[in-house]
């Protein structure tokens, strides 16, 4: 029986590349694709894939919250997280969310097949950096992976995180309500609770929070070319 894989990434070009890579492997098939986290959850419930591959930086519902929602629905889902960064915080959140594989997008052509094979064999797959951090955390017998962990802010609920992401992506309360099938009033109440919990006063604070906590990801423009700096005359 074929191993069935669901792909979730907001870029169709990336999904095409992933599909081409995975379908070269005998006995695997990509049974579905999703372009955001919400669609990924819907399709996973509908298609019941063996492995779900989710990009972290997706609109509407990011990959970490997608992983959480999938595992809340069914703890048997096996999720591989694709990410552009393996910072301590992203690694910690991916592990907390319940991902069983963690692959850098830049290394996906090399690592993704190994990651799917690992999950197929009921093992986990992480980059060497994740393994180092997990080992360090284990050796310290602590709950944290980093000594320089930022102080924790009050915890948002899953719904509040979803709404924070959508607001930080520039949606109005009305648009968020429409996306989540809620009333605008309910979204406004969640929004007030979020701002109160986090002691924020502006949407700008919320956007910064969403970026810092990987609810949304941004790509920085390239730096201008370095200009040679010679010695300056005194």
């Amino acid at each position, binding site marked *: 029986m074929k191993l069935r894989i669901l792909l979730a990434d907001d870029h169709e*070009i*990336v999904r095409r*590349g992933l599909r081409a890579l995975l379908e070269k492997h005998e006995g695997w098939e990509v049974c579905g694709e999703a372009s955001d986290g919400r669609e990924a959850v819907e399709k996973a419930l509908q298609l019941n894939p063996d492995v779900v591959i989710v990009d972290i930086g997706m609109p509407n519902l990011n990959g970490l919250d997608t992983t959480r929602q999938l595992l809340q629905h069914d703890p048997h889902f096996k999720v591989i997280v694709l990410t552009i960064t393996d910072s301590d915080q992203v690694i910690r959140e991916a592990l907390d969310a319940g991902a069983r594989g963690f692959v850098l997008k*830049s290394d996906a*052509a090399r690592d993704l097949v190994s990651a799917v094979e690992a999950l197929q064999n009921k093992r986990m797959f992480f980059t060497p950096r994740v393994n180092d951090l997990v080992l360090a955390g284990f050796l310290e017998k602590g709950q944290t992976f980093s000594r320089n962990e930022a102080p924790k802010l009050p915890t948002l609920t899953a719904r509040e995180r979803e709404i924070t992401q959508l607001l930080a992506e520039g949606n109005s309360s009305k648009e968020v309500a429409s996306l989540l099938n809620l009333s605008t009033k309910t979204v406004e109440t969640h929004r007030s609770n979020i701002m109160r919990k986090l002691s924020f006063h502006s949407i700008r604070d919320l956007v910064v929070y969403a970026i810092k906590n990987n609810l949304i990801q941004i790509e920085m423009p*390239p730096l201008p070319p370095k200009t040679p700096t010679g010695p300056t005359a005194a």
Partner: protein
Amino acid sequence: MTIRILLVDDHPIVRQGLKTLLEGHSGWEVIGEAADGAEAVEKAKDLSPDVMVLDVTMPRMNGLEACRLLRQECPGLEILFVTQHDSPQMMREALEAGARGYVVKSNAARDLLAAVDAVSQHRVFTALNGRNVAELR
């Protein structure tokens, strides 16, 4: 006549996705790939492609720098940016650097074929997400 294309992006998965899309078009051939701007300049000189599909943000040398160099080194080459940057300012920079086309990566599956077709005929093609698609002669 076959249009010979060089693909430049630091993510192999993205190159693979672009390649499957482009090679589905008869008469187009992906003749090479590069993972950064410096490699793109070298391969363009070696392979003389007709069109280069070029990312902006890459290690070693970014796409804008590569584009400026290539304008001098390979004047016949048409350059099409495919980038994450959905920004009029970045698009202007790309065109000023000498590119003939600009497509946002999230829409590449929709816009890329039309864009390669346009730039291969020396026409400008630009498309930003959710905004105008302009094809100028």
